[in-house]
């Protein structure tokens, strides 16, 4: 598959702060990537470097296998960083026309893209009169103007109300469904879980994981159990079982992490034979949130 972006040993220091530490990963065409990390983990700095607005301390990155210089490559990229930045005294259409001039493309797609983000009716309003949600949608329209090879979004739903968040996510999903490569930075896990096929987890500038979302931890899943009586004895019994690792208690529910593959029927039979009757038993994959917390805590 075609490599769109490749980072090699990227490093950025702000004085004593090591914002990005020896970061390497590749972005392949057609996938939807999420960069996950807590606030201040170096997500925006990484995006700033590849977008030519932050200077790297050391390391390399190349767009489209190094076939294009960074600023030429950026004409084929659509990107939104943090807050939407436009000229407040220009209307939506005028702002987009300026971006067309910078990217060296024709202005004919402006109306189409404004329609995609539901701003067509307001196209002649000045940017300064827009709400944050509208500004963010205009930013997405501007990023789509050149039908980009890759769309880079940094915290696209930050600061929006639930309605706005929903609208932006709908738009992102539509774009992803068209086969556009997306790189989405966020600290909102459900956002990444809903949209992304691949994920890169970073903390304090260090890469903890990169790969498919569903292979993030080598986990065999979890069991949720509930009994009405003899709970302590159940915990003891489970702890001695060869397939079960750690057991934690969440309110009334016991959560057992599996070391080995075991079906819920097997465990149910086993416990019933030992004299325990469960009132609740669920086997499931860990949520992205749990995987993320496991990763960031254990490293």
């Amino acid at each position: 598959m075609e490599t769109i972006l490749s980072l090699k040993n990227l490093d950025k220091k702000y004085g004593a702060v090591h914002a990005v530490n020896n970061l390497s990963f590749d972005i392949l065409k057609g996938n939807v990537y999420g960069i996950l990390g807590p606030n201040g983990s170096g997500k925006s700095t990484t995006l700033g470097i590849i977008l030519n607005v932050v200077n790297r301390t050391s390391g390399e990155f190349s767009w489209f296998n190094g076939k294009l210089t960074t600023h030429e490559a950026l004409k084929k990229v659509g990107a939104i960083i943090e807050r939407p930045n436009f000229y407040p005294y220009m209307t939506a259409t005028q702002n987009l026309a300026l971006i067309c001039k910078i990217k060296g493309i024709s202005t004919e797609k402006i109306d189409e893209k404004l329609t995609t983000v539901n701003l067509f009716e307001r196209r002649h309003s000045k940017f300064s009169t827009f709400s944050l949600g509208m500004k963010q949608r205009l930013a997405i329209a501007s990023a789509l103007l050149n039908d980009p090879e890759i769309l880079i979004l940094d915290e696209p739903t930050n600061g929006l109300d639930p309605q706005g968040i929903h609208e932006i996510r709908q738009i992102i999903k539509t774009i992803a469904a068209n086969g556009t490569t997306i790189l989405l930075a966020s600290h909102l896990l459900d956002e990444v879980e809903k949209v992304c096929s691949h994920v890169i987890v970073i903390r304090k500038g260090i890469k903890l994981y990169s790969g498919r979302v569903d292979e993030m931890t080598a986990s065999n899943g979890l069991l949720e159990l509930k009994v009405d009586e003899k709970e302590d004895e159940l915990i003891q019994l489970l702890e001695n079982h060869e397939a079960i690792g750690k057991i934690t208690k969440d309110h009334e529910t016991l959560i057992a992490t599996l070391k080995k593959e075991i079906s819920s029927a097997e465990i149910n039979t086993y416990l019933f034979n030992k004299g325990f009757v469960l009132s609740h038993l669920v086997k499931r994959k860990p949520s992205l949130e749990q995987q993320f917390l496991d990763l960031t805590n254990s490293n």
Partner: protein
Amino acid sequence: MLRLLTIEFHKLKYNKASKILIIIYFGLLTSIALIAAIKFEFGNFKLHLADAGIFNFPYIWHFNTYIAAILKFFLLLVIVSMMSNEYSYKTLKQNLIDGLSKKEFILSKFYTVIAFAFVSTIFVFLVSLVLGMVYSDYNELAIIFSDLDYLLAFFIKLVGFFSFGLFLGILVKRSAFAVGAMFVWLIIESMFKGYLYWTFNGAENTGEKVDAVMQFLPLESMTNLIKEPFSRLGAVRSAANTMGETFTKSYAVEFTTILIVSFWTFAFIYLSFALLKKRDL
């Protein structure tokens, strides 16, 4: 180059404040012609400026470029704000992300500066030509088109001055502070001049020695490009002669001054680029 100019023009076109300042500036340039209407009468003493010879070719080139250069402050505001606005709107970052390189960004501003200076020069040329045609005592072609180096000096002066403004706009990122910084720099140059006078006080030719050093400073060199034209005026000169004063000053545009200002222009633009390149946005 044309692409960069149209990008910058697009940004200016919709900005009301800039548009008004530009219109005022060119309006004032045209109104130089109004000087022709100035008439004083004190009893016997009559002064009609148009008749005093200020619109005679080739003196008019010197006089009008000097007067027109005073108006450059209106355009300075436009130029400083077109730079600092990019910081306050954070559109500089967006421009770079959209695929403008840092070099192109600086060049688009510099080309605009050149365009402004060029249009101003053409404007002054046309206004002076018309005024001269109407009021000048000499209308021979050879005289009309002599001393045109004042127009070149005017152009170089504006480009240098606006480049200084661009640099300060990038350096301090706020238009009001950038204009203030230019004022502070003017005070620093003046204080330095005072200090030089004080140092060379005992020596002969104090003034010459001070000028020999001062000519290398940016604002002083821009001032030197077009020297004040008033003492050159025939009427003033004859008045001075009767009082026993003689002027031996050279009013010509000097090549070294053009070199010095060109050097500063290059330095300001290059420093702007270096500053932008080094900064994280």
